[in-house]
């Protein structure tokens, strides 16, 4: 069975909510929309206090090419345009909307009827990309890179395949798994649309073998209706859901070091949740304002999967799972390997919120840091073939040139090194500092060179 070829670790899967069907979350009283929900320029609010909005009304426009508009997931009145602390822990500009009823924009097709690409021959690649862009769709796996940008590769790159990331390698999370089981037909139409938009004739869906039901269901449906889409079962290993790792696992090609893009080896990678959102946007005219969120944790009474409107505070979803347990130590937005620890549980659900994970006090604490015994386990675990022990030390000693020479910009921050370290060393903490600094230095040097030329 296929998997990526360098490094990797095997965290305990803990997919507690895998058997829980997706249920609709209740509407919040006040919905909050941070403007920076994606990679790139933040969106610009286009509503003011007192404005009436409906479900699906655009409340903020894209702030540039690499950006995405934001749509309201509720109907009601704009309460204020202020700031909110989002999952990153920083205060970001945000639109607050008081919820009144549940009135949808006209034009959104709310029927359950499946629309396939064959029924709509008028959809050209350009039309599909425009609809994706207009619907504010970004990568739903957590990285939130605007989807239309990926579908418009820079000149000189010809995509050959669309690879759908249905790996869900993060422990605990089951949102993608449930989506595949419950919305398989819609997801496949979405993949078909992405293939057409990317002008490629071959699609792959990478699924880890710990989801045999999803592999079976999608394989059967592909065999029946979509001969160009192939389901690729993958050996369970973290971080298979990393874009570069997935390409290596599925088509055996490795994307070179940054700034090379995945499309340079011919692959466009999209999350399975994104494929579903693309289906809804293109076929049902429904912009991105709700998503599947897994709310889970060992101490939680009822771990569940929700279809939640964006802007819903996480505390509301936690309450719907039996409330925040007494011994809670940490609440994580996302999965345990790459998710962000939240400063409070009022953080709203955003485009990239794949999960909310509750950890008890004991699980939440890091182990005592010990000296490095040079066991080389981090080197063996690194999926990018780097030497985390060396990068962490070089970064701690602020040896930025050494960091660069050792390839620190290639780090994907998957956390495999720190996960595996028997001495509990905060390797990734140091590497992040080094990576940010080094990338900053590279940018500054480029700007300086540009200035020199101009003089």
């Amino acid at each position, binding site marked *: 069975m296929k998997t990526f*070829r360098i490094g990797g670790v095997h965290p305990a899967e803990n997919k507690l909510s895998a058997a829980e069907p997706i249920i609709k979350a209740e509407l919040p009283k006040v919905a909050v929309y941070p403007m920076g929900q994606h990679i790139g320029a933040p969106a610009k609010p286009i509503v003011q206090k007192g404005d009436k909005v409906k479900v699906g009304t655009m409340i903020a426009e894209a702030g540039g090419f690499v950006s995405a508009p934001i749509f309201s997931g509720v109907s009601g009145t704009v309460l204020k345009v202020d700031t909110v602390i989002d999952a990153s822990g920083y205060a970001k500009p945000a639109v607050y909307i008081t919820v009144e009823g549940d009135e949808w924009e006209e034009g959104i097709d709310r029927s359950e009827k499946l629309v396939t690409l064959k029924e709509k021959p008028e959809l050209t690649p350009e039309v599909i990309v425009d609809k994706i862009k207009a619907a504010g769709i970004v990568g739903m796996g957590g990285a939130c890179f605007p989807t239309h940008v990926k579908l418009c590769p820079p000149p000189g790159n010809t995509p050959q395949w669309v690879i759908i990331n249905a790996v869900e390698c993060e422990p605990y999370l089951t949102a993608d798994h449930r989506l595949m089981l419950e919305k398989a037909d819609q997801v496949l139409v979405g993949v078909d649309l992405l293939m057409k938009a990317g002008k490629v004739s071959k699609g792959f869906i990478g699924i880890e073998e710990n989801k045999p039901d999803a592999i079976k269901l999608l394989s059967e449906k592909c065999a029946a209706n979509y001969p160009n889409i192939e389901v690729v079962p993958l050996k369970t290993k973290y971080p298979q859901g990393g874009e570069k790792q997935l390409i290596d696992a599925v088509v055996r090609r490795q994307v070179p070091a940054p700034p090379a893009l995945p499309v340079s080896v011919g692959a466009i990678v999209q999350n399975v949740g994104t494929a579903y959102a693309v289906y809804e946007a293109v076929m049902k005219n429904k912009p991105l304002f709700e998503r599947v969120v897994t709310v889970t944790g060992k101490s939680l009474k009822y771990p569940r999967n929700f279809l939640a409107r964006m802007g819903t505070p996480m505390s509301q979803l936690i309450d719907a799972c039996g409330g925040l347990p007494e011994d809670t130590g*940490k609440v994580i937005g996302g999965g*345990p390997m790459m*998710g962000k620890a*939240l400063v409070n549980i009022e953080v709203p659900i955003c485009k990239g919120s794949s999960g909310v994970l509750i950890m008890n006090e004991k699980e939440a604490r*890091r182990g005592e840091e010990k000296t490095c015994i040079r066991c080389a386990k981090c*080197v063996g675990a690194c999926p990018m073939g780097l030497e985390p022990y*060396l990068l962490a030390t070089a970064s701690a000693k602020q040896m930025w040139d050494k960091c660069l020479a050792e390839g620190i910009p290639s780090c994907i*921050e998957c956390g495999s090194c*720190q996960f595996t370290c028997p001495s509990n060393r905060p390797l990734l903490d140091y590497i992040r500092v080094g990576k940010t600094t080094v990338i900053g230095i590279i940018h500054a040097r480029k700007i300086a060179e540009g200035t020199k030329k101009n003089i």
Partner: protein
Amino acid sequence: MNKLIVSLSPHVHSGDSIAKNMYWVIIALVPALLCSFISFGVGAIITTAISVAACVFFEWAINKFCLKNPVNTVCDGSAILTGILLAFNMPSNIQPWIIIIGAFFAIAVVKMTFGGLGCNLFNPALAGRAFLLISFPVQMTTWPLPGQGFGAYLDAETGATPLAIMKQAFKDGDMSVLNQLPSFQDMLLGNTGGCLGEVCGLALLLGLVILLVKKVITWHIPVSILLTVVVFSGLLNLANPVYANPLAELLSGGLLLGAIFMATDYVTSPMSAKGQLVYGVAIGALTVIIRTYGAYPEGMSFAILIMNAFVPLINAKFKPTRFGEVPAKK
């Protein structure tokens, strides 16, 4: 509500720890210790016990009185491991005071002066053995014969080891000397003379299986050492049968003990898989060269110590294959 803990990802840990690794190595050494007890009697146990006690005491005392460390590192099991390995590299009939000197050199000089666990350049147990071999050559090379009952200790009868026989054959150019070698079965089961931990090949291989299954070590170092020795000594044997056959080389002396337990010491071995292979091949080659052409019949410990010194260079030269460097494959 209580305040939430905020830290950067990853939020989960494998649960691995230094102590876990050390204790698994110790468990992997138990079969060899039991075999040694069967071969050499109670002397094997006494020697090991003294060595462990001395190593642990020196580590504790240095932490407590010299370094005044608030956290004593003695609980991580590394001193116990050094103690066992040091004992495994000595004959079972050695006097206790020599063991204690060896333990002092290993822990105090080689390990703690460099900064303790993780900082030492050389394998402490091997450096201790080398120090004793040079300081007390007679006591360190008077090996008891196996099968003298469980009571055998200081008064055990002594005799030549397989390696000494091989060396003799080569020196005299007399192949008939090789006929005195014990059978392979005896060498596998530990029924020969030698250091107390090195004689039972089967028990050491069982230890290797434990270490590999528990993912304490990877295959690179032991396999590359053993393969190199077999190939190198096999070629010598083909060229001139006065060199012992490769299987005898493999099972004699400290080769298995060294390849499985000493060369794989985390602190003093290279970090990348490529580096580990280079290190293993070099150790294997050096061992055969020292065994055949050197002054000592045994070359394993010196080969490892020499290569320990090269580890920083190997680490600088042999980097892991980066992502993007593995070629595309159909």
